[in-house]
C-alpha cells in the first residue's frame, strides 16, 4: 500500500456529491455528522471543497446535466481517492432506470469502490460501509 493511501486512511475526509438524488441519502449523510451518529469519532470529516476530499460519497441517479459535472469534479479530487456509491439510485439508478434523463449508472462513469444499498440507507449502514472500505484496503497490504 502506498504511503499516500496509508495516510489517507487515518482520517478520511469525505465530500458529498449529489448527482440528482431525492435528498434522502444526502440528509442521511448529514445525519451521520450530528450528535447521535457523530462520524468524527472515526476521524471522518465532511470537507467543504472537493480538493480537500479523500472519499467521495456519491448519491443520485446521474442525470444528463450532472454527468459532465461529475466527470469534471472527479478530475479535481486528489488521487488516490475512494468513491462510495450511496443509495439505490447511485448503485443502479433504482426507480429511475427507465427515465429518459438518467442515461448511465454511476460505475460506468467513474470507478466505484463501495456500494451501499438502501433507499435511503440508514446512517449506520453508511458508517459501516465506509469503515468496511477502510478495513478492506488495510488488509490488502
Amino acid at each position, binding site marked *: 500500500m502506498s504511503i499516500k493511501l496509508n495516510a489517507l486512511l487515518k482520517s478520511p475526509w469525505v465530500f458529498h456529491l449529489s448527482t440528482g438524488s*431525492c435528498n*434522502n441519502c444526502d*440528509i442521511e449523510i448529514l445525519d451521520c455528522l450530528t450528535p447521535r451518529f457523530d462520524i468524527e469519532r472515526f476521524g471522518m470529516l465532511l470537507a467543504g*471543497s472537493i480538493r480537500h476530499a479523500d472519499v467521495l460519497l456519491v448519491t443520485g441517479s446521474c442525470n444528463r446535466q450532472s454527468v459532465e459535472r461529475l466527470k469534471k469534479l472527479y478530475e479535481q479530487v486528489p488521487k488516490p481517492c475512494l468513491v462510495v456509491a450511496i443509495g439505490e439510485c447511485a448503485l443502479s439508478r433504482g426507480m429511475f432506470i427507465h427515465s429518459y434523463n438518467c442515461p448511465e449508472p454511476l460505475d460506468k462513469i467513474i470507478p466505484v469502490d463501495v456500494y451501499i444499498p438502501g*433507499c435511503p440507507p440508514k446512517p449506520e449502514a453508511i458508517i459501516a460501509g465506509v469503515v468496511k472500505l477502510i478495513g478492506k484496503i488495510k488488509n490488502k497490504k
Partner: protein
Amino acid sequence: MAKTIVPIGPYHPLQEEPEFFTLTVDGEKIIDIDVRVGYNHRGIEKLSESKTFDQSTFVIERICGICSTSHPFAYTRAVEDIIPMEVPERAKFIRTIIAEGERIHSHLLWLGLAGHFLGYNTVYMWAWKLREEILDAMEILSGNRQNYAMFKPGGVRRDIKAEDIPVVLKKIDSIIPTAVMLKKAVIDDPVLHARTKGVGILTKENAINYSALGPTARASGVARDLRKNCPYGAYDRMEWDMIVTENGDVFDKVVVRVLELFESIKIIKWCLNNLPKGEIDAKIKDIPPGEGIGHIEAPRGETFHYVRSDGTNRPARHKVRAPTFMNLPTYKATILGQTLSDATIILAAIDPCYCCTERVAVRNIKGKKLLHGEDLVRMSQQKTELLRKKMGVK
C-alpha cells in the same frame, strides 16, 4: 460602478430542486438576482405515466426526500378526485399523523441549517438531535426513517398497531421539553434578533403578488394554509392554530416554523389519542376516465398534483407543482438591496436549497478575486460573531 456577479449552484444536495442563482453585486449590496431551475430533472412525470396508479406512489415519493409524504398525499387525493370517493376515516387520521410527523422533521431540519449558516452550530446540533427522535417515531409507525410508503390511492398501506401508540406518544412527549428550550434559545436570543429582524422583508402585498405559499406567506401576514382554508385529512376535527406573523422578515419565518412545530405535535397527539377504528383502505377497483386535482399543505407550502386518467390502469398525464417553485421568485422582492453576508440566510429563509451556499464562487468580473462557498458562509458567521461582541453577549 463595479458590478460583481456571484454564481451560486447549481448543485446543492439538500433540497428537492437544485437551482442556479446569479447574484449581481455592487460592493456589498445585492442589486440583481437570477434563478435557473431544472438541474435535478429525472423525468418523474413521464415515469409516473409509465407505471400503474398504485406503483406511481413510490415514484412520486422520491420527488423529494423531505417531502416524501406531501407528494404521495397530493397524488392520492388527485386520484381519489377522479373517481370521486371518500377515504375511510381511520386512513384519514393515519395520513394526518404521517404528514405532521414529516412537517416536524422538515422544520427542524431547516432550523438546524439556518442556525448553521448564522454561525449557531449549537442550534444545528440540537435541532438535528431532536429530529432523530421524530424519525424514530416515524420508523415505529411506518418502518422507515424517510420514504414512508404509507400512501396508496384509496387509503393507506399500513395500519398503526394499538401497541405502538403509547410508545410513539411517549417519544413525542419526550421531545417537548427540548423543543421548548430550543424555541426559547432561538426566539429570545438578542444576537439572532439583530441578525434576522428587518432582513429580507417580504411585504404582505408582495407575498400576495408573488403567490408565496406556506410559511413564507404566513410570515408576511397572509393567512394561507390549506389545512384550515380547505381542510383535508383529519385537520378539521381538532383545535389547532394557524401561525401567522406580520413582518415578513427572516426572523418571522423562523418564528412561524418554530411555533408550527408545537401545533404539529398537538395534532399528532390528538390524532393518536382519537384514532377511530375501521378499515384503512377503500380498495379501489378501477379508475374511470377523467381528471382530478389534489393539493395539500406541505411543510414548504401548497403541493399541487394534477392527474388525468383515460380509463386504463395508468395515468395519462401527471403534473406536479412543488411549493418552492412558487416561493423562489420572492427572492426578487426580498434579496435586492441586502448585503452579501445576509444572502445565505435570506436564500435559506424560504426553505429552498441551503447547500447551494456551500458551492458558491464569488467572482469579480475582471477575475481578480475568487471566493468560495465557505467564504460566504464564513462571512455570514463572522457578522454574527461581530454583533455578538458589539452587544456584549457570549
